[in-house]
């Protein structure tokens, strides 16, 4: 069996006013090499907790996370090292996800160093230059610090850093939502290219249906700690079955004034009807 599998994950936190708040209530998902899975969820859906558990940064209450047949939360030694090498993450905020005290060379080369892939400094430098070229940056970028780069460029650096250790699975936590609109497409396309070129498996977490529909083969819709709908992207979004998915689809902005205004008028009618029936 290959890839990353999450099975029946449950996680709760102590809640305000006593008791515990269940954030994940039995979530299962699976990403294989070369596959791109979208995870749609609003804030509070539990997607961040899911990512933290899946990456082994946090222990779930129950359920398991397997990578290549070994249980991530009990893995030690070579198994853990393999997981730490083959599963990487790209974060949402490119201004917080790169250590401001490290040069681009150190940032991109860190994985090569800690996994002893390229212990020689000169060879590491050559690798970094090649990686930077692959994500569309000049090689001389390596001598500068992250603060010298724009948001889109930083996200490219973050991707190069993750790709340095030749991962098989890349978890992307809202990787474009903090970027300028005109830059988002560049990063989305870069991820799509890397996936087909390297056979990467991608777990793409987002709240934006458009991006997931563009990039992913299959999708899971997460609401209040449960997967409410899943399936091939076009099946789910072409004919959503669950009310929640439909509500999300209806709330997504439509870049067509006639259609958008018709929808707005309809909503307004519904609100007035509701207002009229209330008293």
């Amino acid at each position, binding site marked *: 069996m290959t890839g990353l599998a999450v099975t029946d994950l449950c996680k709760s936190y102590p809640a305000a006013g006593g008791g515990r708040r269940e954030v994940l209530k039995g979530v299962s998902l699976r990403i294989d090499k070369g596959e791109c899975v979208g995870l749609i969820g*609003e*804030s509070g859906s539990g997607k961040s907790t899911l990512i933290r558990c899946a990456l082994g940064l946090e222990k779930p209450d129950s359920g398991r996370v397997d990578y290549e047949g070994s249980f991530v939360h009990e893995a030690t030694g070579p198994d853990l090292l393999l997981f730490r090498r083959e599963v990487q993450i790209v974060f949402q905020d490119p201004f917080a996800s790169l250590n401001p005290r490290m040069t681009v060379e150190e940032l991109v080369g860190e994985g090569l160093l800690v996994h002893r892939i390229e212990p020689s400094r000169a060879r590491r430098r050559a690798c970094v230059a090649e990686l930077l070229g692959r994500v569309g940056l000049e090689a001389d970028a390596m001598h500068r610090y992250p603060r010298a780069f*724009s*948001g*889109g*460029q930083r996200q490219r650096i973050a991707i190069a850093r993750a790709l340095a250790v030749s991962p098989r699975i890349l978890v992307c936590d809202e990787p474009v939502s903090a970027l*300028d*609109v*005109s*830059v*988002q*497409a*560049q990063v*989305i*396309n870069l991820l799509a290219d890397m996936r087909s070129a390297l056979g990467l498996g991608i777990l793409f977490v987002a*709240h*934006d*249906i*458009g*991006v997931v*529909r*563009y*990039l992913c083969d299959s999708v899971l819709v997460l609401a209040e700690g449960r997967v409410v709908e899943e399936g091939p992207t*076009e099946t789910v*979004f072409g004919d959503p079955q669950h009310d929640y998915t439909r*509500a*999300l*689809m*209806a*709330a*997504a*902005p*439509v*870049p*067509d*004034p*006639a*259609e*958008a*205004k018709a*929808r*707005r008028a309809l*909503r*307004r009618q519904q*609100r007035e009807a509701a207002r009229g029936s209330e008293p």
Partner: protein
Amino acid sequence: MKPLLEVRALTIDVPKGEGWMRVVDGVDFSIGAGERVALVGESGSGKSMTARALMRLDDALRIGGAIRFAGEEVLGCTEAEMRALRGSGIGMVFQDPMASLDPFMRVGDQVAEVLRIRGVGRAEAHARAVAILAELGVRDAASRSGAYPHEFSGGMRQRVVLAMALVAGPKLLVADEPTTALDARIQQQVLDLIDDAAADRGLGVLLITHNLGIVAGFADRVLVMYSGRIVEEGPVEQIFAAPAHPYTRGLIAAVPRADMRVDRLPPIDGAPPSPARRPSGCAFHPRCPVRLPVCVMTAPQLRPSGGGSVACHLAAAEEAMA
């Protein structure tokens, strides 16, 4: 008839080191009574600066040009006249609804404060605050008005912020990225709320956003801003159906759609420039796929085109040919 708001040759400079840095460089637009105008732009475009300049919120800025609101010259107002204008002439909603509220004051008092400043008695101000909170959909407004901001959810806080902007009966509502931090469903609720409130009161609205998508269903007219200037302006239908500026075209094409499958997104190369490093000529020229030699040299003027106007050498040349 005179428009409600008229902005002419607006320039804004921010202090930088010993000198000044121009962040808004000659912006013209107007908003009629009851009209919805969207100002769309990315980071560094100067859109929020423009919004804040309308109410002169930042003392440190140097603002040039003319801003006429309801026939009065805003830039010539004294500080006392400005205070009277803020809130009762122009109401404003800010980006982050949590950060827009004073965490140490009860929400009812924060709404009522707008009226108390204007000499309304305590009881009446409070009653009117509760009434507008109820109107904007805060349940149990009378008792909830005694709660503090942190006791409200994101969508509810945005209602409080909107109540603050509307309670003194302004003629123009300026909404600066009011939905940016919110989920799509809440975002839609907030926009609908502004929609209803503006329709009921016949308010003019200036919606500042980076998200072209939310504009389609909301605005009558769209202004597209890039690096301190307006590059295109027109009725919303025309902007989406026949964008004339390559930047507007790129923006619309680069956003993946939720309602249909797209094969390949055509990206815009590069990144929006910071005001400190604005390119020569047309600021968009380094990223423009249809750049002409002249674009590097001189900045294009905003010229009428179709039902709107566009600032582009190529569009002007095509117009001249036709």
